[in-house]
């Protein structure tokens, strides 16, 4: 096997014995043995066994910061598309600080359809009713810019170790970048086409080692 690659596991592939370890994402247990559920990169630590999927849809988790698009305005809140099979709801109380008399005020003055927000997932019920909130340090409305969608499991690669990758793209292209855990990336700036190209390269070759150098090379070349 080429040394530049990470080992890939396929659905149903045996990972290791459980031995009291925690069952993480994308794995399942059968008679004390742990198998992968998806195509991905195995991650076996002392306490947990999990697999990082190489494809798949975003499944909401409490605390994730995501980029969503408003798709509907209701009496006391908004429906938000968070790039997942499930639509999220943003209640009025989680979006606006002041008291709003819903019988008099049209709440679309706060957020309207097609506007883009950066929010946090507040609650995921068992039946997948999802609530998001704007009561968060980084939550804000995103004005201008474009949205790029990638596979959600590749978000950590776009950010890189300690934000190395994202800072590299920011510095080289002078773009504003915001990454949602749901695989939506907001890019704003003059040189955004180059930033998008870099993001798509990361998505395509996320499973190889030494990606940061490759992206750096690509961004420096095209000057």
């Amino acid at each position: 096997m080429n040394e530049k690659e990470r080992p890939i596991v396929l659905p149903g592939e045996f990972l290791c014995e459980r031995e009291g370890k925690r069952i993480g994402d994308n794995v399942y247990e059968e008679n004390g043995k742990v198998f992968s559920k998806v195509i991905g990169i195995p991650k076996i630590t002392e306490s947990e066994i999990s697999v990082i999927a190489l494809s798949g849809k975003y499944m909401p988790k409490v605390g994730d910061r995501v980029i969503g698009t408003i798709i509907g305005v209701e009496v006391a809140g908004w429906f938000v598309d968070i790039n997942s099979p499930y639509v999220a709801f943003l209640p009025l109380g989680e979006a606006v600080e002041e008291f709003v008399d819903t019988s008099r005020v049209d709440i679309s003055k706060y957020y309207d359809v097609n506007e883009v927000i950066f929010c946090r997932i507040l609650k995921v019920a068992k039946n997948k009713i999802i609530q998001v909130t704007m009561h968060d340090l980084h939550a804000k409305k995103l004005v201008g810019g474009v949205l790029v969608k990638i596979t959600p499991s590749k978000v950590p690669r776009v950010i890189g170790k300690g934000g190395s990758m994202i800072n590299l793209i920011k510095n080289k292209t002078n773009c504003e970048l915001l990454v949602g855990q749901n695989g939506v990336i907001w890019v704003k700036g003059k040189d955004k086409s180059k930033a998008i190209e870099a993001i798509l390269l990361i998505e395509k070759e996320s499973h190889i080692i030494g990606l940061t150098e490759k992206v750096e090379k690509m961004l420096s070349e095209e000057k």
Partner: protein
Amino acid sequence: MKRGEVKLITDGKRIDGRKPEEMRNVEIKLDVISRSDGSAEVAFGKTRVLASVYGPRALFPKYLQEHETGILRCRYSMAPFSVDERKSPAPDRRSIELSKVIRLALEPAIFLEDFPKTVVDVYLEVIEADGSTRVTGINASSLALALAGIPMRDLVCACSVGKINDTLILDLNGREDNYSEVDMAFAMMPGKGKITLLQMDGLVTKEELKKLIEIAKSTCEKIYEMQKNALREKYRVSE
């Protein structure tokens, strides 16, 4: 002509020159449809099937949603030009049955309970039909599901077996499909050793049936390796 009346084996060789337990050439292509979540094209000799997977995605109308689990929908359809005489593109009784059979063969492999209220759609299009289309379809959809990142217990592999003049044969082509004494579609999860589809037409003895299942099982193991190699190849970086 009826089943068993056409000479399909002469001097131990079948009409296309294969030995009784020889498979046709298998060709696998991945990610053939860029806008789908996962897609694959599998060819067994002249039979060629295209599978594309979309989802998990929101399911509407709402009354179709299942509260505790997601659902799987399969659509098997033959292209009008896939057979000798033009086939009407409308879903007929056969297509509807095969759609259901394929769905039942794939369902045990998928963790549908991981995404309640949603649907996973599998669309199968037979581009060229020369026997064993349903098993080719199952192989293609297994690959497409894996590429779409749908959580699965194992890959599903399938093949067809049959009987001509007391000779047990593997991987039936179109003519053999029509005129052989027995034809059996078989699918399993080789990693788990579990059979997910067993359909048979014709008459066999108990011993023959056991032998047929054995042949099918060992063939599925081979197809399993082919599927795994194809998936691994996709993520190999060419440098």
